[in-house]
């Protein structure tokens, strides 16, 4: 037993270690060079035959040899693992330029979003939603709203007549009439929105069915100033801090009636853009966004209120046009055509 024996064991081990390149080969090498029958273990078994005086030193050299083998095996294992990992990572390269695989979300309709936006504004004023039928009796669509038969205002809303002398509602103001008829406790603050119908020839900008949003506020002591304040609040909440103006209008169910104009966002009210007449507002400098007024005394009387005691504010928004404007859609009919390309583009652009 001598150091050269140890060195030859180490040399042989190292020669084999250099050839090992896989975890399996390393395991085999480990079995043969650290197991019970490994050369170094066999040397250790021969220590009993060694002179006791020399035994400690020789044993120490054997132990040193065993440790060296363990350490070099460990080091080689780490290196092989690292190489294997590197190879795995290399092999697992993913082409992330490919399109993503999550389910592509669809989208809600711009009109729904606009209605919710309007309703969110109205909720701040304490309004709640009320629905009404789309097939209506002319009483709620016309007569109760101060539009008697043969009144010119009926021409303003060409009507689809249906069975039994009923009609498709031409405005959501019908819901106001139905609410007032119920005589709920004051104050009344309700909004209604949805489909309305006009018997018109359809083209890119005229529809036989479109959407409106309306609100009515009835209470004691509501004034024309309140009407203006409410309209101003709604206009600013929906459109931001643009200049607005009020102008006289005529609606059969309000008196006085008011139109609300918003300063044209293109020409800033000048009526000209780029040295030419502004197309966005037809050179008016203003765009009408709201129709409104104080609830007509005839309506209040019709439903049993004394107009000297109770007054009301009513207003309406053309949500179809508002949604189209916000989305940049010029042909509003496309909002009603179920063309998924349109819906996709409105959601995702392009």
């Amino acid at each position, binding site marked *: 037993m001598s150091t050269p024996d140890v060195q030859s064991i180490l040399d042989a081990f190292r020669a084999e270690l250099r050839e090992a390149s896989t975890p399996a080969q390393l395991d085999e090498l480990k079995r043969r060079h650290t197991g019970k029958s490994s050369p170094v273990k066999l040397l250790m078994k021969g220590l009993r035959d060694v002179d006791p005086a020399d035994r400690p030193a020789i044993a120490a050299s054997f132990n040193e040899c065993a440790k060296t083998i363990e350490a070099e095996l460990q080091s080689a294992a780490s290196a092989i693992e690292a190489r294997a990992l590197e190879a795995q990572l290399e092999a697992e390269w993913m082409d992330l330029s490919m399109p993503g695989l999550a389910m592509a979300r*669809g989208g809600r309709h711009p009109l729904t979003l606009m209605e919710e936006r309007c309703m969110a504004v109205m909720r701040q004023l304490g309004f709640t939603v009320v629905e009404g039928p*789309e097939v209506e009796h002319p009483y709620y669509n016309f007569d109760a709203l101060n539009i008697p038969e043969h009144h010119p205002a009926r021409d303003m809303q060409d009507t*689809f007549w249906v069975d039994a002398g009923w009609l498709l509602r031409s405005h959501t103001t019908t819901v106001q009439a139905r609410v007032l008829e119920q005589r709920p406790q004051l104050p009344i603050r309700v909004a209604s929105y949805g489909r309305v119908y006009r018997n018109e020839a359809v083209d890119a900008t005229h529809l036989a069915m479109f959407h409106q949003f309306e609100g009515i506020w009835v209470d004691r002591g509501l004034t024309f100033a309140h009407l203006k304040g409410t309209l101003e609040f709604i206009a600013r909440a929906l459109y931001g801090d643009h200049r607005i103006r009020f102008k006289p209008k005529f609606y059969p169910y309000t008196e006085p009636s008011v139109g609300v104009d918003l300063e044209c966002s293109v020409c800033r009210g000048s009526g000209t853009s780029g040295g030419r007449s502004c197309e966005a507002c037809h050179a008016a400098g203003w765009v009408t966004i709201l129709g409104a007024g104080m609830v007509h*005394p005839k309506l209040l009387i019709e439903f049993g209120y004394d107009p000297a005691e109770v007054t009301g504010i009513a207003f309406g928004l053309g949500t179809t046009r508002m949604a189209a404007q916000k989305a940049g859609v010029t042909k509003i009919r496309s909002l009603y055509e*179920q063309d998924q390309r349109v819906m996709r583009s409105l959601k995702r652009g392009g």
Partner: protein
Amino acid sequence: MRIARDVLERFTELPADNRELRLLLDDLGLEVKRVEDLDGPLTFTLELLANRGDHHCYEGVAREIVGRTGLGLRTVATTPLDLSVGNWPVERHTPLVLTYTATVLVRDGEAGTLSAEDLRTLEAAGIHSISAPVDATNLANLEIGQPTHVFDADKVDGPIILRESVAGERAWPLFSEEHVELPAGTLVVADRSKILAVAGVIGCEDSKATEATTRLVVESATFDPVSVRKASRALSIHTDSSARFERGADPEKAVLGAGRVVHLLEGAGWRRDGGTSRVGIWEDPVRVIEITAAGTNGFLETALSAEAIAEILERYGFGVAFEGETLRVRVPSWRLWDVAFPADLYEEVAKSVGYNATPVSLPPVDLGALPGAAETRRQAVDEVLVGNGFYEVFTDGFYGSWAVEGLGVDELHPLASHVTTRNSLERSYSLLKNNCLAQAVSAVATNAHRRTDDVKLFEWTRTFHPVEAPEGDKTRSPSKERAVLWAIASGRAFPGSWSDKSLVDALFLKGVVQELAVELGLDLALDVPSTSDPLHDCLHPGRQASITLDGARVGILGEVHPAVLKNFKIKRGRPVYLEIRADALLAEGSPPVFIEPDSTQPIERHLTFSLPPRVEAQSIAAVIDAFGPEWLTHVHIVDRFDHLTVPAGPDGSGEPRRAITFELTFSPGSSGQSRSADEVNGALEQLVAEVERQYGSAGVVQR
């Protein structure tokens, strides 16, 4: 209405700056739609308020300006008429003619024309010159808003008779190629043998004045607005005259209008022949409305004195008398048709002050309301659908017969029964929709035509179902409306994916329903299809199911029937459709019940059975669930593999089968005592035996 600045200036003073004038007109509700300054005078095209007939003339527009500026109103020259003895007999047989005058004019020499200035006034308004008599009537209407008409007196047979037409009576309106039949009861101006004019609407060819006319009857009258309107609509003839009369004309202006026409024609070579005949002298009802300064200021939140309010109203032509603190306001004759309440007077005051100059305040409000439960739940539904790639759309509330034909149902089918529109301009709007499937499939077809085969659409809408209802009863609608949600999908389930090419099918929609159930906390489930569902026949008989809520049917789901696809010319894709009642989705749900997860590892085993067609996998799962030990916690279907049985027939074909793998999850037992493998295996053996006992005869075997 088109007006010229220089003409308007004859009636009142105007701002020097044209832009300022435009803003003023807008501010008064005389909205300027167009400004033209080409070769002629500067003109404004105005959109007038629909109820203000008195605005349809220069004088009316000028009066509105005066109401703001307080500057004087000027009017046109007229000839005073002798009303003591008329020169043409007039008989009134109807009270619908409020007042009527007839004045005879003759000419001895050549026909003259109106002055150059008058003709320019007409031209600026877009009215072409025809002859002096016609031009004079047009100009009078344009200037002071009184429609008038001229007849060739030599073509009038006897007295002028004011009456209502009888059934079958015919007239020959100007510019018409032939006589037209008038509805019985039409207000007409006639003589002994014919109709001279449809009152307030248009004259007739057989009495019209021409270049050869030497004797005229000038008509100036006020007719009942509704009668004029009915005649105008019935004949589809809309004139400046009818527009004025049907909004309510000034009953005190008939004589003035005649005087203006006479004045104009006297300048063109005509002279009066005798006095003016008049019937139906207007009796002023003296409409008086009482207001107070406090009431006015309370309404407008202004601080105007009673005198200031009176002065404003007087600018508009109202008469005001004080009675203590009360202002007794007399409505002028040209406003009888639109002023009846104090609010109408408040409007006048507000217009004079300026709508943009009156105070603004926000009424006191309560704390804002939160979204209602229905709104919140609808958003939750939308979120599920949008998350699964659906786009919201809107369809019309009606369709044409194409929809019924597309669904392939016969006339006795429930889907053939509709609420109908009676006057739609387009045939495609003739039926109120009683289902959403037709429009949904049509949408798929439209998208396919545009090369969009992967379609996922949904809509909240209503369907309309006919109900027996008597004509005109406002409490009984002929339509029962149902609010529904529908969705349709066609093409790939994951359209954006280049790796998953699977197509949508009824199970995809079932997954959507299950997600809705989770999101809404509702017990939505699928059940066997119901043949009583109107859509049953339009969906694939073997690929449809009822949707139930707490056991009650609330909707339907399935693949669109191939015959329907053929009718809609859909060649690619197998669209699947679902429809659920909105009230079911918006009903209150239950929140999920939380169960603390077991801290120990569950035991999982798989069982696979081979199923023949028509044996539902869920029925096998139900057996496993029912007959498993108490410690069986879950049964899930985790795989399906389609295969054929070993060929049995001479043609070598086997029966198509599905190998369904069920994952069974067992509780591992109480802590520290894990369940033995023998115990679990014993339970599995029993379950296999039970399934084969119940379904073995149907061909179910373990694989």
